[in-house]
């Protein structure tokens, strides 16, 4: 359960942006917030299984590229139709310039 996996270098993601990370057959989305913190959620929208990493990050919100379902990527909370199921979130830490996520 405590598997920390290296996802990318901290500088690979711009501030207020998102990147896709695939690991062991699962897809994750890694976020860098405007205040330079990192977060991770499951990679696919709960509405129609679209990769969220193609979406737009504005402040705390990731918006699905397909149908504009919105989630708070810090908490995973669904914030706007058509999204109604929350995203799973995963612990993230930055260590020696690397972004690590605990894939659980």
């Amino acid at each position, binding site marked *: 359960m405590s598997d920390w996996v290296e996802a990318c270098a901290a500088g690979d993601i711009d501030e*207020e942006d998102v990147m896709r990370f695939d690991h062991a057959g699962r897809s994750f989305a890694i976020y860098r917030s405007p205040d330079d913190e990192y977060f991770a959620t499951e990679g696919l929208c709960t509405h129609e299984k*679209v*990769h969220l990493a*193609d*979406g*737009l990050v504005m402040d705390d919100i990731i*918006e699905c*590229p*397909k*149908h*504009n379902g919105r989630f708070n990527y810090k908490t995973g909370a669904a914030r706007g*139709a*058509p999204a109604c199921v929350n995203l799973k979130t995963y612990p993230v830490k930055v260590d020696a310039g690397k972004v690590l996520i605990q894939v659980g």
Partner: protein
Amino acid sequence: MTRGMVIIGAGECGGRAALALRDLGYEGPVTLVGDEPHLPYERPPLSKEAMTGEAPAIKAIATDELFAERSIRHIHSVRAVAIDRAAHVVRLSDGSSLSYGKLLLATGSVPRKLPMPGIGPRCVYLRTFNDALAIRAHLSAGNRVAIIGGGFIGLELAAAARRLGATVTVIEAQPRILMRGVPAEIAEIIHKAHEAEGVSIRAGQGIATIADDGAEVGITLADGQKIVADLAVIGIGAIPVTGLAAEAGLTIDNGIAVDERLQTADPDIFAAGDCCSFPLAIYGGRRVRLEAWRNAQEQGALAANNMLGANEAHAAVPWFWSDQYGLTLQIAGLSDEGRSIVRRDLDDGAFILFHLAENDRLVAASGIGPGNAVARDIRLAEMLIAKRASPAPEALGSQAVKLKSLLAA
């Protein structure tokens, strides 16, 4: 006794409105009336590859349990037949009636009928899930499908039919497909994608005759070419469902006419979604009617808010998407408001056309590319359009300049 909220039309718009009333804290009666037997469901999948699975299913926007939990009464398989505005009563096709405090008309639209003799049982239209199932039964390898109308419904169905191995011919009377609202440069990409997948597109051809004998359909084009199909799907646009409103004396102007708050001339009656026309402030109050999924959602929610007295104007930028094969097209804004075009190339052959009005004001953006390649930039363009921004054309055209940076300007 509180009369409560009644919503006529249980599609995306009506369903969202009902849920929004509860989200907004309204505690009185909410009744949702729909003429289909189903829960409110998403219509966009009906023309797309989602229908190509073994057992296509409805994608409902709410469950019976959710409606029960939120005390939303859903009356299905019943039509509203009359509104008595003075008495604040709606009469239903089952003989019952509902009294309302506020009424929302979310009656949607229906396919425009092709006014030609010779149309028979093998000539069909797509609007409902049941329509989609009936079409699906004919989309198999070896079957011949004729699509009449090179608009989005027809082209998406063409792609789905090819996926299932059917032979597909698309007939479009206009000189090219997607004449309405889609720039020629983007229509050409879609045209080529269809041809590469084996679809025969006959554009610029009117239909001279149709003969449907119940087993197959013979279509003769104006130039004498003949197409024989096992099924003809007619997708030549939609018309708003306005009869109920018209008979109640409400104004009809390319849809049920509402103001920017989605209110009709009767302060207790609102209309939203495909069935209504409304003024769009970002285009100087131009009256439009949108047949789009997101608009149905947004207006459903806005109407709910205004039924509760919020008095809020519709300010959303029109937004639309289509999926065909691996391509996604997205359009924000109304491109016919533009006078010039700036092109921005993205990775993987994707590109966006920015439509600029006088003084370089950004009024629309149309993008196409594989997967969701254009989604992020179209979303940013939508925000720029909403701000009535006039970004430098050279910045819009350069992939090196992030669109997000233009938002802050």
